[in-house]
């Protein structure tokens, strides 16, 4: 049973999962990072309070986060077709993963940026820094350890969600686990894919934490 076709399939699954997780997390940050920055500065104690903007972003992030991922996956099928051209496979799964991850990432970015010491922000203001300079030269720099720790958590969560997309033909290891392990009762393949998912998760987690530790100078 463990012929070259099966092994190739599993290898492809690994590549698919890694591809989906990393690309989705990346685009999740492309949307979530600016959203998190805007949430931080438009909040009432922020650099430039803007109640309307904050409310809109706050509501958007809460609505998207309250939709279960499996439902989001289905709801977004027309949109996914529009963007990727098809609704199954690894590339198609990236679309709902990004939409699902972005508001979580925005919230994590917000909480990281709010950890930055007010005194340091005040010092920058006293030096004549503009709000944009404070965002790029103070907030994002001072919060980077926390941002990287959170990015690691985001990557791990996206990895888990990508496996969930397997139930609707999402590709990657999760897809294999569902098709062979669940529908065909091939327990050995399921166990192997699960172990591979655990190993991948550990690699992501440890690499992320290592980088975060390396870059932290605050003890």
């Amino acid at each position, binding site marked *: 049973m463990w012929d070259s076709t099966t092994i190739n399939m599993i290898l492809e699954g690994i590549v698919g999962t890694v591809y989906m997780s990393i690309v989705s997390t990346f685009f999740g940050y492309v949307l979530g990072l600016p959203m998190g920055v805007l949430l931080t500065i438009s909040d009432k104690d922020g650099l430039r309070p803007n109640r309307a903007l904050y409310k809109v972003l706050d509501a958007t992030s809460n609505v998207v986060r309250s939709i279960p991922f499996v439902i989001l996956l289905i709801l977004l099928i027309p949109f996914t077709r529009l963007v990727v051209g098809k609704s199954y496979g690894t590339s198609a799964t990236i679309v709902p993963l990004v939409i699902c991850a972005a508001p979580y990432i925005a919230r994590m970015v917000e909480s990281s940026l709010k950890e930055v010491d007010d005194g340091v922000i*005040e*010092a920058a*203001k*006293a*030096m004549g820094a*503009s709000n944009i*300079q404070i965002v790029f030269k103070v907030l994002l720099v001072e919060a980077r350890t926390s941002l990287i720790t959170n990015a690691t958590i985001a990557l791990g969560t996206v990895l888990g969600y990508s496996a969930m997309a397997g139930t609707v033909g999402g590709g990657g290891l999760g897809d294999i686990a569902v098709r062979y392990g669940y529908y065909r009762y091939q327990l050995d393949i399921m166990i192997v894919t699960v172990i591979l998912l655990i190993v991948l998760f550990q690699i992501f987690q440890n690499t992320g934490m290592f980088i975060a530790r390396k870059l932290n100078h*605050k003890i």
Partner: protein
Amino acid sequence: MREIEIKSLCKSFVDKDTKVDALRDINLTVDKGDIFGIIGMSGAGKSTLIRCLNYLEKPTSGQVIVEGKELGQLNEKELREKRQDIAMIFQHFNLLQQKNVIDNIIFPLSLQGVKKKDARAKAFELLSKVGLEDKANSYPSQLSGGQQQRVAIARALAADPKILLCDEATSALDPQTTASILSLLKEINQEYGITIVLITHQMSVVKAICNKVAVLEEGQLVESGRLEEVNLPEDKFFWLNKENELKNKEFAKNNYSKEVRNYVG
């Protein structure tokens, strides 16, 4: 020559329905080259007052005139430019924790777009001025409080300010370190001609370096003038006692009303 003029400055904070007058009708003049001390107990409005001098706090009414320019008249960009002339150091130093010492000193220059090479040269010069040449690559968390304040002073001097505001700059330091920081401030004042305004609750700080002093009590200036002219309480525990007295009064009042309420209830 007049460096800073404060004219009938008021600042009140409104929180829901309660209004607190933090500063009431402050008039003050600081001349070029002064080391001007503002002393008062905590809650007197010192921090608010010093923050009005660079408009980190906007006064409710009144004027702050720095080198002939009224800060309230400036737009945001002009105000930011003006702030480069008014450096500030803080009780808790407020250094960037993720940047090393030299990059912290470069920081205000990088905000102004000074070339990295020129900024570095300047930063090393200032670092030797504050006596920390060997700490260029250390991070703030590896330094003592006194060393961090020295870095903060070097950072404040980087943009060639005309005025240095000190917000309880020695309150978190032990007496020996305080003395060394104060003598550094005095040196800076004499060597570069930088006007210094400092707020403190320590009488010893005022006596050590100030040539002028103002006493702030419950948001009002009760006295101001040259150090030798102003009647400063001799007792060095004066402020502490005054503070305790107030706290006790407050406590008694609260307890009393509680008792009354219990009795009535």
